[in-house]
């Protein structure tokens, strides 16, 4: 017992220091809690739908937790790495158990986990809710492209790989998406919406998007689907509700609709027969 830190007085000092440290930490944490938006993004961004913003806040809070716990562990590790390096041939005290300490680092993480789970549930329930809406898009993924159908209208958008087919949706309205696939599993992913969902053959996945800003957002297939997976892009064009209606109406010109459908049919036939295995991008083919 030569180490002064081991003496009861030292221990008391350390404990007092810890308490002071905790109080010092409590203030900024509380301040941050009051203004979620002032937190850094930790590499993510708020995105352009209502749920992408909730996901972003959830991301921020998970990150705050991860940084605090990570730093605590790194400091403890570095402390022992530096302070408890070998200084001689003496054999250290062979401490093996410290039950109160072990209980603390079992119970506290359980509480943290339930906190994270509660926050998860709140955001998740918001995100998977499907409120009633009149704007519906049937999204059909195939090898290797996308088809966007607007049931009840003549509108149809169809495109392969780098043709970047554009899904047009109105801003600030709930858009109900019915997602499926005609062949293998694809992934519908729009980075600016902080969201992805599988397009499964034989299953129709339903979800709701509510875009907050007008603009063009790039999307792509994220689930490996074969040769041209890397090039299976699409775009989401968010326009004002009036422009959206005008866009839909433009398809009511029968001629356009027939043309579009004919193009789609021929494309599908080419794909089925394998004639068109020469998409826009041949440079990387076998």
């Amino acid at each position, binding site marked *: 017992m030569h180490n002064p830190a081991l003496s009861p007085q030292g221990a008391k000092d350390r404990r007092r220091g810890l308490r002071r440290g905790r109080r010092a930490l409590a203030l900024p944490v509380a301040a941050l809690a009051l203004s979620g938006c002032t937190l850094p993004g930790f*590499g*993510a961004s708020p995105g352009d739908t209502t749920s992408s913003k909730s*996901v972003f806040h*959830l*991301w921020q809070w*998970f990150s705050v*937790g*991860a940084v605090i*716990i990570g730093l605590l*562990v*790194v400091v403890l*590790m570095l402390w*022992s*790495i530096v302070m*408890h*390096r070998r200084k001689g041939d*003496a*054999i*250290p*005290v*062979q*401490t*093996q*158990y*410290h*039950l109160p*300490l072990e209980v603390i*680092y*079992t119970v506290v*993480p359980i509480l943290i*986990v339930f906190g*994270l*789970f509660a926050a*998860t549930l709140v955001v*998740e329930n918001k*995100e*998977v809710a499907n409120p009633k809406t009149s704007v519906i898009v049937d999204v059909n993924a195939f090898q290797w492209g996308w088809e966007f159908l607007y049931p009840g209208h003549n509108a149809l958008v169809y495109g392969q790989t*780098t043709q970047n087919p554009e899904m047009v949706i109105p801003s600030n309205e709930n858009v109900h998406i019915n997602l499926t696939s005609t062949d293998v*599993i694809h*992934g519908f*992913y729009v980075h600016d919406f902080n*969201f*992805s*969902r*599988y397009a*499964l*053959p*034989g*299953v129709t996945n339903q979800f709701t998007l509510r875009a907050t800003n007008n603009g063009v957002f*790039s999307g792509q*297939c*994220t*689930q*490996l689907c*074969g*040769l041209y997976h*890397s090039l299976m892009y699409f775009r989401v064009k968010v326009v004002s509700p009036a422009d959206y209606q005008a866009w839909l109406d433009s398809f009511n010109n029968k001629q356009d609709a027939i043309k579009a459908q004919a193009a789609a049919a021929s494309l599908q036939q080419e794909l089925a027969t394998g004639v068109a295995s020469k998409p826009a991008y041949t440079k*990387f*083919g*076998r």
Partner: protein
Amino acid sequence: MTDVLEPSHVEHADHVHDEHHGPSGLVKWLTTTDHKIIGLSYTVTAVVLFVVGGLFAEIIRFQLASPNGTLVTLAQYNELFTMHGSVMIYLFAGPFAFGALANIIVPIQIGAPDMAFPRLNALSYWLYLGGSITMLSGFFTAGGAANFGWVGYAPLSNSLNSPGAGADLWIGGLLLTGFSAIFTGVNLCATVFYLRAPGMTMFRMPIFTWNLLVTAILILLAFPVLTAGLIMLYADRHFGTHIFSNSGGGVPVLWQHIFWFWGHPEVYILALPFFGMVTEVIAVFSKKPVFGYKGMIFATLTIAALSLGVWAHHMFTTGVVLLPFFSIMSLLIAVPTGIKMFNWIGTMWRGQIWYSTAMLMALGFLFTFLIGGLTGIYLASPPLDFFTHDTYFVVAHFHSVVMALVLGAMAGLFYWGPKFTGYLLNERLGKAQFWFLFIGTQVFTFPLYLLGLYGMSRRMAVYPNHPEWQHLNDISTAGAVMIGISTILFVVNIAYSWKKYPAGDNPWDAQTLEWFTTSPPPHHNFYRLPQIRSERPTWDYNHPEHRALHHGEHEAAPAEVNA
């Protein structure tokens, strides 16, 4: 001290050479049932396959070093990442974890003469070697190797979308290595339950052996499911069944359920042995007992139990699984994992830490695994998983974890290598290897986290729409090159240190039973055993006055110990 149990017919060291009249050379290697030689074969095979998988990774990284990389074609790229993942997970990490070091060390740690079923053990190795060659031979077929990702999702893996022999060889190779794993699981369980030396109770087994026992149980629960799934997949491809295709009334997502019901326990089948390795290394090089030994075991058991109920967290974005259940189960795994982390730090706390290469590798493991573990917590939350699923964030997360396991494997090799070869490796080269591996790992993974958050998807051979991602990809490629250099340094070290530094029985003042016998151990491992009164029999024998202390206990005077 007369704490040594001498058998009535005392064997002496000078009998080493005539005790075992077997063949030698190639015939010995082909016919052996000695767990140490089989384990060494596993070790060499697994390290060779690690180099093969690593070469695939380097090609992948160089392809991604520019947005329109033309090093390989799209088709070749799909084969490369499929076989990179398959080789690293199926052929390197698993067999290295429960075939290589487990085979050599577990019987010695519990004072057994060999594995319980030595011939089954030999069969395991030959199935593993045969399966590995089978899987890799896909590259020599007309259609190329398997190209549907290491997870082989249906219906991409059916005969329509993936015709060709490469896919069948992948299934066949995986079946063979799967049986190899199952047999090893049986063998490890039987060995641990029936062949422990007198005095070696369950709660005196070293953590490494405990972790391997739990791993073996997980293997027995998980691998048969994979085997069944693979047979179904093969039947779909060749016998006209429609288990995974909806055209005949099947369900494609069923494959994912089967695959991940094996796949998530597999994560811990891979990880637990390496957890065990670093636990032993940290305790020995801190000159302390494992802190919270029993808590550590319960944490391992908890991880194993939870790991069977979390498979669908790989399937959150399918939209067809119950999100909250799999979310809370997955989040809860953080608790026992955290316990392990704190136990490792507790083991180092107030120790006398000796920074040998093995210890540096173990510390590198701690740091890298911390990052991989914390980023894993995000993925247990469905909304955050929707956001990052199939992006490079996930790739970065599991590469942090598996690179931590590689650091753990290196810790194990530097620590136990001298035991089964009889020779130490060069420490200076080892430390150079450590810094390249450790820094390389962080340089490699950190940009990938950012790329994932910026929207870069997995399994893309090119990213023509996003030239701005090139810089981060280049940094990651530089990290991959550093990891490659570290592997070269390891091979150089083996060549340079070849039979140069004799190790002696116990070069590290280690604690467990394997350090009580000679290096390398004799044919049936022991001529004599110490009394086993704790999980550290060798330490107790060498330092009888320094036994482990419970909470509130103080170091006793030597007189009290003898009493």
